[in-house]
Structures are given as structure tokens and as C-alpha cells.
């Protein structure tokens, strides 16, 4: 029994027939949602778009594998995440780091965290080194266990735990910087 609307099922069928107009429509319809996922795994917007397009390419070429009894959004999300993981594996050599040493020993408080916007948090996540960012996203946002992350990313469970800890620490420091900047800007 399909869980998606008739309109979406019909659109997916057209996409399966390589109808370019329908493909574009599906892309536009799920762009925002997919971009929200991809932005978290990328260093910047351009990289997010590249991951998004690769993900959609996989979606459109593997639509026949989509089980219509499951949520399309869930399937799409899994593909985007897997695409991001593969993208990380291929581009790991290009990873770069942000210097947050000046903010060490600082930590963000939860009240201040509530004041920081979703966009700012996303930008903060993007500043994390790719390996930390990947583990952080998979563990914190997607809810994977370290054993699963270890298998998916190809790292040891210990590395996964370590990366998560460092990622949390760095993210908190970045958010603290953002908080300080916000305080300065608003007096």
C-alpha cells in the first residue's frame, strides 16, 4: 500500500520514464529538504549543491529500487546521507580545518544556544573538519550508533567516538565564538 500521495507516486512514475519535466519538478519539490541534509555534510553551499545533485542523480537513476510502501522522504534522505558519506571518502584529502584555539576552554550555555539561529548552527557545523562533521551528523542528527558509523565510514569504533567528542567540543567552541560575535554586534 503506497504511503505517498497519488500525485507524488504519479510524479515518480513519470521520472522513472525519464521525463525531464517531471524530474525537474521532483527536484524542485524536494530541493529544500535535501539541501537541509546536504548543507550539514558540506563545507559550503556549493559543495552542498554538488552532493545534492549527485544524490538526485542516484535517485533518478535508481527510482526502480524505491519501495513505494515506505516514505519517499526517508528513502531520499538515506540516499543523500550515503552520497555525502561517499563524497567525504572521495574528497577526504581536501579537508580543511578552522582554527578555534582562541576560544578554547570556553563553552556555550543553553540559553545562548537557543538564541542562535538554525542557519548559524548549520554554518557552525560546516566549519567542522569533514571527518568530525561526518561522525557528528551521523551520530547526533541521524541517530546511528558508533558501530554503524564505523561500518559506513570505514573507521574504527574508537575513532568514531573520538571524532564525535572532538566534534562536539569544536562545535561548542565555534558556537561560543558566534555567541561572542553576536554579543559584540548587539552591544
Amino acid at each position, binding site marked *: 500500500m503506497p504511503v505517498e500521495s497519488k500525485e507524488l507516486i504519479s510524479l515518480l512514475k513519470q521520472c522513472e520514464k525519464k521525463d525531464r519535466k517531471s*524530474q*525537474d519538478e521532483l*527536484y*524542485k519539490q524536494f*530541493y*529544500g*529538504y535535501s*539541501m*537541509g541534509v546536504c*548543507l*550539514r555534510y558540506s563545507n559550503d*553551499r556549493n559543495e552542498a*549543491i*554538488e552532493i*545534492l*545533485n*549527485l544524490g*538526485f*542523480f*542516484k535517485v*533518478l*537513476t*535508481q527510482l526502480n529500487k524505491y519501495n513505494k510502501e515506505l516514505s519517499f522522504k526517508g528513502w531520499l534522505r538515506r540516499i543523500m546521507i550515503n*552520497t555525502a558519506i*561517499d*563524497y567525504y571518502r*572521495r*574528497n577526504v584529502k581536501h579537508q580543511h580545518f578552522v582554527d578555534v584555539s582562541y576560544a578554547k576552554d570556553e*563553552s*556555550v*550555555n*543553553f540559553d545562548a*544556544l*537557543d538564541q*542562535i539561529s*538554525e542557519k548559524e*548552527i*548549520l554554518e557552525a*557545523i560546516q566549519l567542522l573538519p569533514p571527518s568530525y562533521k561526518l561522525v557528528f551528523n551521523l*551520530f*547526533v*542528527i541521524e541517530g546511528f550508533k558508533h558501530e554503524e558509523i564505523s561500518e559506513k565510514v570505514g573507521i574504527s569504533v574508537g575513532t568514531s567516538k573520538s571524532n564525535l567528542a572532538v566534534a*562536539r567540543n569544536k*562545535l*561548542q567552541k565555534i558556537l561560543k565564538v558566534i555567541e561572542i560575535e553576536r554579543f559584540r554586534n548587539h552591544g
Partner: protein
Amino acid sequence: MDDKRFDDVIKNKVGEYVDPNFDEGAIGGLHQYLSTAQPIPWYVLYRSPLIIAGTLALFTLFNWMIIRDYASDNNDLNTTSFNEEMGKHQGLISDLREEVDRLKDVKVDTVFISSDRNVQSNPISFEKASAGVSEEEIIRAFLVKISEGGSIGRIGDFYFYHEDELPSLKEFLALGNKDTELDGSSLAMAYPQQDTLWKEFQVEQKKADSGAMPVLVIRGLEKHYSKGIGLKLGIEAEIAANKPDLGSGEALPGFGLLTELVFSPSLGLETGLKFKNRSYTISDPSVDVLSSYPDINDRLGEVQSIEVDSRLLEIPVNLKYYYPIRQGREVYFGLGLSPNLYLSQVFEYGHPSEAIPDLPADFSLNNTVEKGKPKFYLGTFNAGTGMSFDLRNKRAVQIGLFYQKTLKDVGVEERGMSSYGLKASYWWRLR
């Protein structure tokens, strides 16, 4: 800070984040991926076996028709089977029948005939009829009898003679039997009336060995009665193996609509319009080679292979010579030229699949460039040979081999090409 709480806050903030800004330019990247990476068609896996099987099937059909033709024993051809063979010459017979009514009323003057080669020693004499009609009409009347009665065996054993030589008749007889010296003065023979001739002819027929009408006699008859330029219309299918001057080609089919101007039973000019595909692949092309190929996308990495698919219209102009090998069977030889109108060319450049991360295993990375502006090229030199098999109702089937070579480089990339293959055509004689 409590890690669990921190994680929950982050997850709640960005876990279901939907980006509000749609980047119109982003979709272009997807389009590029979709256009450069295409699924490998299922038939690619079976392309070679299919080509081999198709070629074998065509060769088998060709050989079967040849063997069937020669395997039949001419000596076993009895009167009935001969009638059937004659029936296939509907074109000739129908022409002859048009004259039947008129000629039935014609009182035959003279026909010179003998049923024995040694005519001087044992001539058959008939009463000479009164004069009044031309010699040509007399001969036609005789031939009408043959075609109507159909109970004729070896016409080559029957000679026409005349005191005064008839050039056309002499030619006809020379075709029938090369041993015959036509010398009217020394072979003054019989002068039968038409009915007597026919009766005597039937008698001699029984004595004679049964056999087929010599093909050259048939050709002589056809030439004798051919009037003006004939016209044939045909459809043709072919499979041609392409061989470029670099790389390897593919065997691909072609189809066409042809017409043939029949100048004589032996000579025709074939022309028409054929749609063909030419395809070839170059692996690991050098820089020099790449320089002549259009729109290579350097961003996708080095070009590992080039596949070129060209669609073209061919306008063949071939002179064909037909040589009869038996009744209803001819060998033909053809030579000519075929100007080419290239309709479109598709250049598919193969790049390393690593250029697009995470490309599924069953996908290859190809950058496809299409050049759709039609352009004329001098085309090819053509040579071919094959067999022509007459069917009923002025129809015929031809099966043959052909070879083509480009006279000058063709295509956007300017590459020489030769091709060879099998073709089969079905013809209707319109006139």
C-alpha cells in the same frame, strides 16, 4: 555542558532543516550528470553475438539459394517444369501475348527451321507459304507459339534460316547456338506454313532431349523485345561492417528505397535513397587524434574512448550488369558512387568514471555531443556482386555482397571509412 542535552538542542534545531532558498542554477548540475552518464543498453552485452548470428543467417540464406539453384538437375527439367519456368518470364510473355491476337490473323509467310544441326545433310522441308508479312513478324509468330504452347524443350537445337540474311535473326540464332554458322546461301531450307511448322516442331520436340532453354537465348529474346527504358522499384536492407581508418567499426543495418532504370536486360542504372548508420570506436586516442574531434569536455578528465555514431542518407548511383546463369537467375556486378548527406553525428567521449563520485556500478561516464547540421560529402566508391532471382508477377529478389570506400574524408572529424557487407533487395518491375 551536558553532551546529551547539547546533542538534542542541535538535532532539534537543524535535524529537519529545510533550506528556504532555491538556487535556480543548481539544477543545471543535475542536468549535466543526467546527460553525461547514461545506462549501458542491454543489447551492448549481446552486440557481437547478434552481429555474428545475423551475418551467419544472411550468408546461410545466400548460400542456400545458390546451392538450390545449382543443385537442380537441368536434365530432369521436364516439359511441365519448363512451363513453370516460362511462366516466370511474365514480362516477356505478356509482351508477346499482346501480339497474339494480331498475329493469329497473320498468314505466315516463311519460317526457316530445322530440327537437326546437320541441316545440310538432313534438312526438313516445308511448303513455302505465300509472301505478305515481314520476316520479323514471322519469327514473332513462331515465338508466340512457343510461349503459348510452352511445350518446348531445347530451342537451341532449332535453327532459323533464310536465303537472305536477317541481321537481327542472325544475332538471335548466334546466341542460341554458337556452333551455328549462319550462311543463308548455303542453308536454304524449309518454308513451312505456320501450322505445319508447329506440328513438325512438336514431333521434333518429342525426339529431342528435354532441357532448359539456354539462358543466352532467353537474354536474346528479352533484348529482342525490349522497348525503351524499363523501370524497376525496389526496397533494400543491408548490414554493413564499417572499418574506419582508425579504431574499430561496428556492423549496422541500413535501409533504402531504390529505383533502377533498365537500359537493356543486361544493363541497368540503380539509384535511390538509403538511410544508413556508421559507427566506430577509438580506444585511448592520442592528442593528435583528439584534435579533430569536437567539443571535448576537459573538465571530465582524459578521454579514454571515442564512439562516433553517424546517421546519413546515401544516394547511390550504380551501374549494374546482369549475366544470366539460367532461366530466372542472374549474376550481377555493380560499380558506382554514393554521395553522402550526413544528417547528424553523435560523438560520445568516454571519461574515467571517477570524474563523477559515486557513479553506480552499472553506469559509465560518457560525454555526448551531437552535431546535427546536415552536410554533403563526396561519399563512397561502390562495388558489388550478387544474385538476382526472378519471382512471379515481375518481381525479383537480389542478394549480394558489397564494398564501399570513402573517396574523401567524411564527417565533422574528417575520417576515412570503408565498409563491406551483405544486402538484400526486393524489386517490382513497373515497366
